[in-house]
């Protein structure tokens, strides 16, 4: 009797483990997993071009991850991209005049948002907007500019000089 029960317990555990693995695979490693959890607050930033930025792409300060991209949407009236960032609650002291830039890790790597802290005394709060932004640099447009001679019509050129030192 006890042996029979231990078989049944083992079978039950095995089936539970299998379904737990299936549930984990289905909810955590697929497109179902795209909600960020954990205590975080959201900031907004507008970009004229987000390039290849993806949901859940990292948000970094000084190369250290502090949050992730929550939503990317097109603002219907201004026709620019509104990106919502979910920032970890621990980093709630970002100065008001911080700047956000869409950067690329490596030459062909993935894009992420780098935040360059400003110097204002007031901190950004939940729902605030980062006013100073720098769009994604479109590599093919840069190449086009240098090849053709720089008359590409462009909101998208990246304006490398506008945000001080954001690429560092």
């Amino acid at each position: 009797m006890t042996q029979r029960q231990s078989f049944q317990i083992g079978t039950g555990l095995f089936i539970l483990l299998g379904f737990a693995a299936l549930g984990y695979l289905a909810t955590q490693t697929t497109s179902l997993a795209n909600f960020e959890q954990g205590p975080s607050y959201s900031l907004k930033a507008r970009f004229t071009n987000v390039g290849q930025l993806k949901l859940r792409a990292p948000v970094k300060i000084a190369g250290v991850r502090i949050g992730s991209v929550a939503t990317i949407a097109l603002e219907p009236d201004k026709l620019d991209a509104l990106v919502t960032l979910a920032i970890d609650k621990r980093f709630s002291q970002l100065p008001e005049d911080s700047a956000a830039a869409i950067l690329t890790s490596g030459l062909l790597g993935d894009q992420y948002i780098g935040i360059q802290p400003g110097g204002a005394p007031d901190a950004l709060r939940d729902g605030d907007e980062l006013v100073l932004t720098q769009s994604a640099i479109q590599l093919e447009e840069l190449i086009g500019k240098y090849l053709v001679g720089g008359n590409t019509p462009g909101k998208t050129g990246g304006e490398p000089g506008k945000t001080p030192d954001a690429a560092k």
Partner: protein
Amino acid sequence: MKAKPGRPSALGAALAQIGACGLFFVSILAALPRSLRYLRETSRQVYFVGAMSLVIIMTCGLFVGMVLGLQLYHTLSIFGGTAALGTVVALSLYRELGPVVTALLFAGRAGTSITAEIGLMRATDQLAAMEMMAVDPLAYVVAPRFLAGLIAMPLLACVFNALGIFGAHLVGVSWLGLDNGTFWSNMTANVEVWGDVVNGVWKSAAFGGVVALIATFQGYTTAPTSEGVAYATTRTVVFSSIVTLALDFVLTAFLM
């Protein structure tokens, strides 16, 4: 070479095997309703072929994931695309490696033991004794093992996949220094539940059914000698591996 009259040629023997296996499959299906009386036996078999295979499946899944992480990291770094590591590992595991490697391991770990067990029952006339007692060996011995393979394989493949992802994460993120968020964000952006995860589950269920069918068939039709059981066990592994890989191609073409 011409076959001697009265003895089937090698081709004829192979065709006869396939035909007998197909008929055996039909008779298992016919015995399935009757085998529902022996649900406890089925759950015992799920324990034997499933739960007892967990250790080897988990270990192999972990190492396959780690090797994938290492190999793909170095290959992708040539193109500056290491960010895609999570995606590539997940897709190759869910779609191909998980179901196929699990099926091969399952054939070696569980298929052989099924064949040997049923083969010895045949060699020691236990199956004939069951028939004498009006117990249908197809319903009591074969069908529960077939069902157990069908149930256990998808679960084992899921465990294999999960451990594989864990191994790739271990190598890619903890060891080689890939960003944790990049690893997961690329994976979750490109892997789909129905297209990838569930397709892999269907595949592994098909493989589980095929491996269990071959194992039970080889055991059931073995020559009733110790040599016959040895040959049957070998054939289980060989045929299961061939059929799994061939079926994988067909299923991939259909499920794509």
